[in-house]
C-alpha cells in the first residue's frame, strides 16, 4: 500500500495558452538570443584581450580584433532582434529604457546590451583600416580615428578592458537571466552564469577559427572547404591572416570546451545533490525526456566530438576543417535550446502521469 501521503494525481483545470500543461512561453527566440549573447560576449572578451596584448603597431590577427567585433555588432543586433520578436507587447519595448530595476536581471541586461555597442564599435574602429582597406580608402576619417586610438596606449588598454569587462558581464548575464528564476528548479543555479560565459567563449573562438580556416589562402586551404566557401572567402577581401593563430584558437577552444564540460558536470552535480525537486529537474536532462538530445547533441556532438577533432588537428593528425567549428556553434545553440526548453518543463509541482 502506498503511503497515504504519496501524491498520486494532480489535476488542474487551468489551461492558459503558453502556461499549460507546462510552461512554454519561450520558443526558439530566447535560446537564439542567449546564443548570440554568449557569442558576442566571447567575441568581446577575445577581441579585448587581443587588443590589450597586441602592441598597436603589430597589426595582425585582425580576425579577432576587427572581424570579431564587427561580427559581434551584427550578432548582437540579430540577438536583440530575436529578443524583440519574443516580446508579446512589442510597441512598449521602449519602457525598458525608462527605468532601471535593480532586482531584475533583464533590466541589467538591457542596459548592458546598450554598453556593448560603443565598446565593440571602439574595438572595431581601432583596426578597421587594416581589415577593410577599401572602406578606409573611401572614408579617410576611419584612418584618422584608428590612428588616434592606436596612438594612445591608455585608450587601447581602456577599450580592451572595457570589452573584457562588458563581455564578461554580458556572458554571465545570459545565464543569470535563467538562473534567477527560482520557480523553475532546473534553472535555479548560479553556475548557469559561468557556464553560458564559457560556452559563449568557446563558440566565439570556434567562429574565429572557422573564419580563419575559410579565409586561408587558396593553396593552403583544406580541400574540404574548397567548394562553396572559397567564394565566401573572396568576399571578405581580407589580408592573408596569421595562420599561426589557428592552433592557438583551436587550443583555446579546447580549453573552453573542457571548462564548459566541467561546469555542466558541476551544474548537474549541484542539482543532483539538492532537493528532490531539483533532482527531478536534473533528471529531465539525465534520464528524462531531454536525455537523448542532451547527451547526443550537447555532450556528444557539441563538446566531445569537436574536442576530439580539434585535438587531432592540434596533433597534426588531420587538417584544420570547419567541422569542429560547426559542431561547437551547433552545440552552443543546442545547449541553450535544451536548457530553455527543459527548464520550462521543470516545476515545483511535478504532475504525475
Amino acid at each position, binding site marked *: 500500500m502506498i503511503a497515504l501521503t504519496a501524491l*498520486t*494525481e494532480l*489535476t488542474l*483545470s487551468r489551461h492558459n495558452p503558453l502556461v499549460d500543461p507546462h510552461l512554454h512561453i519561450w520558443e526558439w527566440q530566447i535560446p537564439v538570443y542567449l546564443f548570440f549573447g554568449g557569442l558576442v560576449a566571447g567575441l568581446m572578451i577575445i577581441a579585448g584581450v587581443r587588443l590589450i596584448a597586441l602592441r598597436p603597431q603589430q597589426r595582425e590577427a585582425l580576425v579577432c580584433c576587427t572581424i570579431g567585433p564587427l561580427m559581434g555588432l551584427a550578432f548582437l543586433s540579430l540577438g536583440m532582434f530575436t529578443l524583440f520578436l519574443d516580446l508579446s507587447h512589442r510597441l512598449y519595448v521602449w519602457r525598458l529604457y525608462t527605468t532601471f530595476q535593480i532586482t531584475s536581471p533583464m533590466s541589467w541586461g538591457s542596459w548592458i546590451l546598450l554598453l556593448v555597442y560603443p565598446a565593440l564599435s571602439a574595438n572595431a574602429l581601432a583596426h578597421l583600416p587594416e581589415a577593410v582597406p577599401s572602406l578606409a580608402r573611401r572614408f579617410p576619417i576611419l584612418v584618422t580615428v584608428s590612428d588616434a586610438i592606436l596612438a594612445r596606449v591608455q585608450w587601447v588598454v581602456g577599450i580592451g578592458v572595457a570589452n573584457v569587462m562588458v563581455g564578461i558581464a554580458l556572458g554571465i548575464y545570459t545565464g543569470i537571466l535563467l538562473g534567477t528564476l527560482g520557480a523553475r528548479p532546473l534553472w535555479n543555479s548560479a553556475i548557469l552564469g559561468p557556464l553560458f560565459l564559457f560556452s559563449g567563449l568557446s563558440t566565439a573562438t570556434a567562429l574565429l577559427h572557422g573564419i580563419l580556416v575559410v579565409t586561408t589562402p587558396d593553396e593552403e586551404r583544406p580541400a574540404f572547404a574548397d567548394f562553396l566557401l572559397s567564394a565566401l572567402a573572396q568576399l571578405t577581401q581580407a589580408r592573408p591572416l596569421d595562420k599561426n593563430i589557428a592552433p592557438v584558437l583551436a587550443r583555446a577552444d579546447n580549453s573552453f570546451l573542457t571548462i564548459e564540460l566541467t561546469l555542466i558536470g558541476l551544474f548537474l552535480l549541484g542539482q543532483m545533490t539538492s532537493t528532490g525537486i531539483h533532482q527531478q529537474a536534473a533528471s529531465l536532462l539525465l534520464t528524462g525526456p531531454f536525455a537523448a538530445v542532451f547527451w547526443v547533441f550537447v555532450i556528444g556532438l557539441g563538446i566531445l566530438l569537436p574536442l576530439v577533432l580539434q585535438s587531432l588537428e592540434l596533433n597534426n593528425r588531420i587538417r584544420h576543417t570547419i567541422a569542429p567549428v560547426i559542431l561547437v556553434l551547433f552545440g552552443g545553440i543546442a545547449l541553450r535550446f535544451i536548457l530553455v526548453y527543459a527548464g520550462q518543463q521543470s516545476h515545483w509541482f511535478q504532475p504525475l*502521469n
Partner: protein
Amino acid sequence: MSCEERVGSSDLHHSAGPTGSLKYRKKRVATVMNLSRRRFLQISAGTVAGLSAVDLTRRVVSAAGKDAQSGLKRIPTFCNVCFWQCGAIASVRDGKLWKIEGHPRDPLSRGRLCPRGSGGIDAHTDPDRLRTPLIRVSERGEEKWKAVTWDEALSFIAEKMQKIKAEYGPESVAAFIHGLGGKFFKHTLRAYGTDNIAAPSFAQCRGPRDVGFTLTYGDDAGSLERTDIENAQCLVLIGTHLGENMHNSQVQEFANAVGKGASIIVADPRFSVAASKARFYLPIKPGTDIALLLAWMNVIVGEKLYDKEYIDKYGFGFEQFVAEIQSYTPEWAYPETGIEPETIRATAREMARYRPATLIHPGRHASWYGDDAQRSRAIALLNALMGSWGRKGGLYVPASMELPDYPHPPYPPAGKATADNPNDRYPFADEVISTGIRDATISGKPYPVKGWLVYSTNLMYSLPNREETIRAIQQLDLLVVVDVLPSEIAGWADVVLPESNYLERYDDLHIEAFREPFITLRQPVVEPPDDQKPNWWIAKKLAEKLGLGAYYPWNDIEQYLDARLKGGGYSLEDLKREGVIVGKRPPIYFEDGAPAVFNTPSKKIEFYSTQLKQAGFDPVPRYTRPEPGPAGFYRLLFGRAPMHSFSRTQTNHLLMDLMSENAVWVNATEAARLGLKNGDYVRLRNQDGAVSDRIRVKATERIRPECVYMVHGFGHTSRELRFAFRKGASDSQLITRYKTDPLMGGTGVNVNFVTIETEA
C-alpha cells in the same frame, strides 16, 4: 448521479460576454455566422454588422476603464440552465448582458448561483442556436431543411395533427416534455385530447425513487428534495454525488453541513467529491446498494438502535419487517458489497448516534439497475428507522404558495388510456413512462402513436438505446421539436421550432414546495436575437390553429401572469421589480407541529407493504445479485459535472472553457496494466459492439477497478452544434441495454459493459 441526467437542450444561449472579451468574441461570432448561412438560413447581415458595431463601441468604453454606472440595469429573473430554477439578478450594462448573480432573497439561490447559472450569460449570441422555424426537406435525420415563417410552420403542424386525430384519434399524438416551459404545451395537448404526455425525468431519472418513497410514506421525496441537509448531523449518500451534481440549494446546505462537522457516510464505487468530505467512504461494488441497506437495517434492528417511539407511533408492519431482515447480516453483505462487516456495523451505529438528525439522502437520478424502486424503498425504510421523516435534519414537510390557475374550459373527456403502460404492466407507475410511449410507437400497440411533440428534451441522450428511438421515429407521421439548440433529436424532426432563451422570455410562475413558500418570476432580460418565440406564444398559436383558441382566453402572458398573481393578492408590477415573493415559513418538522400525514393504505409508514404483496412483489425489499459483465469488460457508470447540465451546455463557450470534453475514469492500476496514460485518447466498445467517440483517459485512484465512469452529455453528433460537435464521448451511445423496473417501468441503465480500445 442525479436527476434529469438525460434531458435535452433548451434555453442555452450565450449572451454578450463580459466587456473585455468582446473583441475576441466578436471575431468568433462573425466567422461562425458565415458558416451557418449555408444551413440555417435567414440570418440578416444587418444583425451581424449591428452587433459588431455595438461591440466595438463598448470595447472602447471599457478600455477607458470606466463603467458607465448609469447604463447598468439589474433585472430579477430566475435561472433555467438546470431545472432547479434559482432566483437570479441579471446585470445589463449598456443594453448588453454583463453578468448574472444569485437573488439574495430567493430561498433557492440564497444570493449565489452555481457555475452554470453564472455562466448562463454566455448565451444569446450563441452562434449555434436555432434561429427560425424549419421544415424538413429530405430524409429524416439528414438534417436538411427549409426555413419557413411561424405561420407556415404552425399551420403545417396543425394540419398534420388534425389528420392524425381524424385517422387514429387524438391520443395518437404524444409528447415528451421537460421543465417548466412545457406547461403551455401540455395545456394545448390536453385541450387537443391526449394524455400521452411523458417526461423522461420519470422513468429515466427520479421515478423509481418517488415510487419507492410513496410506497413507504405515501409521499415522495419531492423535486426540490425535502432533504434538511443543513441540519443533518449524519448524512448518508449512496451514489449521490453532491458537489458534482450542482443542485444549488443542496450543495450550499451540504457545504454548511460539512462546515458544521456533520458526519458524512458515502457509499459509491467512485471516490466522489462528496466522498472526500466523508468520515466513512465505502467503496461499494456497483449494483449492491440494497445488500448494504439491508445489512445496515439488520444491524440497527439487531442492536435496537432504531427510534422505537417514532416507529410505534407511525410504523406499520414492523414485526414482519424485522422478521424479513434477520438474515441480512453484515457478514452476509460482505461478499456481495465488498464492504467489511465491521465497517457496516460502525456506519450503522454512526447513523443511529445522530438520529433523528440522520438523513439517508434519497438521491435523485435513480434508474440504475432495474431494482431501483425497491432500492429507494430500502432507503426510505432506513430513514424511517432513524425516525428522520418529518424531523429536523431529516426529510422535512415542505410548504408551497397557492395561486389559482387562469380559468379555462374543461379538457375533453379522457378517451383511451395512455399508451405507455397497457394492462398496468407496471402497476406502480404514477406518471407516463416515456420508454413505454416509445414501445407503443414502435409496436402500434395498444394503439398507434403517430405524432410526437418534443419540448426541451434531447431524447437521443435522455432515452436509453438510441436505435429504438430512431425506430420509433420512423413510425411517426409527425415529429415536432421545440428547442433552443439544434440538438440531436431536432435533427430527426419534421418541424423544428426555435424557442427563445430563458433570458429572453416570460414563463409561468415558479411555485414549488420548499422550506418556505415562494413565487419567482422569469422575465425577459434581453431581446431574442432572431425569430425565436417564447413557449407560451408557440403553444397559444398552435392551439389557435387547432381551433382551440378558447383555451387561451388571454392575449399575452403578462395578462395571464397578472391575473394569476392577483388571485393571490399580488401584482405582476411588484414581482417584476422584486423578482421573488417569499411567504411565511410554516412548521416543517413534526416536533414543531407539521402534520404527520401518511397517504399509504395503512395511513402509516409501511415497513411491510401490503400493496406490494398484493401485486406480487416483495413487501420488504430483497436483494438480487447484479449480473456480472463479460470477462474483460468494465461496467459503465456515468454522472455529472458541476459545470454542465446534461447535454445542453456544450455550446456554452464559458462553461466549455471550464470543461471542454469529458474523460473516462479508469482505475490507475488498470490503466497501467492496459498501457494507458492520463490524457490518452481511447474509444469504448460496449457488449453489443457499439463504439463511442474518442475520449480521454483519466487514470485515477478514485474508482474501483471493475468499472469506468464518465460525465454525461458530451460527444454530440449533431453537426449544427458546431462548438460541441464530437467533443468527448457520449455514454448514451453505449447504453444499448437497459433493465426495466418491474414496479414502475423505470429503465436501469448501469447494466452496460465496455472494453477500452486505444485510439490508432
